[in-house]
């Protein structure tokens, strides 16, 4: 991957529309004259994958989702979802997609159960309310109460349950972990995984890398409205060279240490019986271990330290992952 260029394109990947859950082509959204929220975005999300959509606040993630869901209309370019045009075939999309939107609200005077019943009837689905409640970890007693009295976490779980109504082919989660405690964050991951295991697609947006790292097959990084990377997490590490450090403890360091010759190894440092190897490609880690044995050392211990994803993020976005960047607002 060409990391020298600021913007990358995910288009031109040879795949027909039938296997693309989401495809944007030259997608641009401008608010007024000076806010360019999304800038010429080409993105393809394949069916059956869990796709992480990363970027600092204000990067244009929610705007992209807003266009995909037809909440806003693009200035240029287009988006298709499951082969349907986002602007002209909205209903077909909404029948097949479940969304946890950014900045959503619920009805304070309505109980959790009524919310789900309403969503089920609007979607003409036949879900069992109790089963949905169970999937998101809301107990039935809480579901009888009105949402006005819910905590942020409970509200988020209910909104997640609404997104799951009708067992959608594509689940779009915009910052699903906000307001959730660690149990809730884990639950979101489980739901995403579970949904993908059923053969469905999950599109998972977040500004926090650690939340998507564990669960996503591929990620895209968006910054200032432009796509700066699309890859697997390992692929991103490899491409950036901010890979991992393999620390080997051996009985004795062999004289002819050939680790530096391995493809993907960038640096080898020896300190007593400890060998530290910086690895830029994920596949080189095993090679390092094999090679040190071949060189004649007995391996006592191995530790692998992945480079921080926050570092990776900063490397791509070119500034602090959180905070100040808000040229576009996160809409």
């Amino acid at each position, binding site marked *: 991957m060409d990391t020298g260029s600021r913007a990358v394109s995910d288009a031109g990947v040879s795949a027909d529309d039938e296997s693309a859950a989401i495809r944007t082509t030259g997608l641009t959204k401008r608010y007024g004259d000076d806010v360019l929220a999304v800038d010429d975005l080409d993105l393809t999300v394949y069916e059956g994958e869990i796709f992480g959509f990363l970027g600092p606040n204000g990067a244009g993630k929610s705007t992209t989702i807003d266009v995909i869901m037809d909440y*806003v209309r693009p200035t240029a370019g287009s988006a298709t979802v499951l082969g349907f045009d986002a602007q002209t075939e909205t*209903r077909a999309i909404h*029948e097949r997609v479940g*969304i946890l*939107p950014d900045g959503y*609200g619920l*009805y304070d*005077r309505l109980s959790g159960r009524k919310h789900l019943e309403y969503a089920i009837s609007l*979607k*003409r689905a036949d879900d069992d309310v109790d089963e949905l409640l169970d999937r998101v970890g809301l107990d039935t007693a809480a579901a009888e109460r009105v949402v006005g009295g819910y905590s942020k976490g409970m509200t988020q779980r209910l909104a997640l349950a609404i997104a799951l109504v009708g067992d959608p082919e594509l689940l779009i989660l915009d910052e699903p972990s906000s307001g959730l405690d660690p149990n809730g964050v884990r639950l979101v991951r489980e739901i995403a995984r579970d949904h993908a295991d059923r053969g469905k697609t999950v599109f998972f947006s977040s500004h926090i890398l650690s939340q998507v790292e564990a669960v996503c097959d591929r990620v895209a990084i968006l910054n200032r409205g432009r796509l700066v990377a699309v890859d697997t997490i390992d692929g991103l590490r490899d491409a950036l060279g901010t890979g991992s450090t393999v620390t080997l403890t051996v009985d004795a360091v062999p004289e002819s240490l050939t680790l530096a010759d391995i493809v993907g190894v960038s640096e080898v440092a020896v300190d007593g019986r400890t060998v530290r190897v910086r690895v830029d490609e994920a596949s080189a880690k095993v090679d390092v271990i094999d090679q040190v044995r071949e060189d004649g050392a007995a391996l006592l211990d191995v530790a692998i330290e992945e480079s921080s994803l926050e570092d990776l993020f900063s490397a791509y976005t070119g500034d602090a992952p959180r905070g100040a960047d808000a040229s576009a607002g996160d809409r």
Partner: protein
Amino acid sequence: MTAVWLTIARKEFADALRSRMIWGIVAVIAVMTSLSASISLLVPDVEGGAEMAIGGASQFAGLLVPIMALIAAYLAIAGERESGSLKVILGLPPSRGEVLLGKFLGRCGVVAIGLTLGFVVSGVVTTALYGGLPVGAFVGTTLLTVLLGVSFVGIAIGISAVTRTRAPAMTLAITAYLGLTLLWDLAPNAVHLLVTGEMPGQVVPGWFLLLQGLSPTGAYNALVQRLLLGGGTAVEARLGGPEPAYLDPVVFLGILVAWAVVPLAVGYVGFSRADLS
């Protein structure tokens, strides 16, 4: 299979029951129309019958119904847009047009049932006070009042569809109320003054009555008067001559319906083009 707009309309109606909004409408209409129906008994010199009583009630309704219909519906869409629940609903299959239609019908149902129940109460009061009730005139007036309510629900939904938040929706709703009920009353007089150089007297030109009846409340008043005073004779007395075709009741019915449909259509166009972020 139920149409989604019907599902939305039902929910709107259930919400109004839950929030007791509908009972507020019933109470206000029942009390105010009953009071105004009994005024002619309290004022000794006024000769009153049950028709007069209904007329008095309709005068009050002409002022009250617009404000209640506006309150009942001005936040229907703007409120959901501000709170973000609109994103949840529009993330489900309903289109923007279906949401608009469902909201309009649901709130119309609320206003219609509230007004009808309120009028039933004042009908009972009128019967008790005057020893009888002209059923045809009473039912007709109730239906016309419901139609007036529907017009203002259409205006309110139109306003709600083109505003993002509560504050501008409220400003527009208040403006619509003041403009359509209070200011419009003055407009024909002003025009008369401009055209003829004097204030309207006992006999007025036909266009003056048409101008009065172009607002929803004006059209309502014209229709109720015709209903209660029987045919076009009162109009001819006012004009001092034969009645022109453009003062036919059908024209005023059309005006009432247009006041519901046109704002709705304008609201739909604005809403369907809007960026809901």
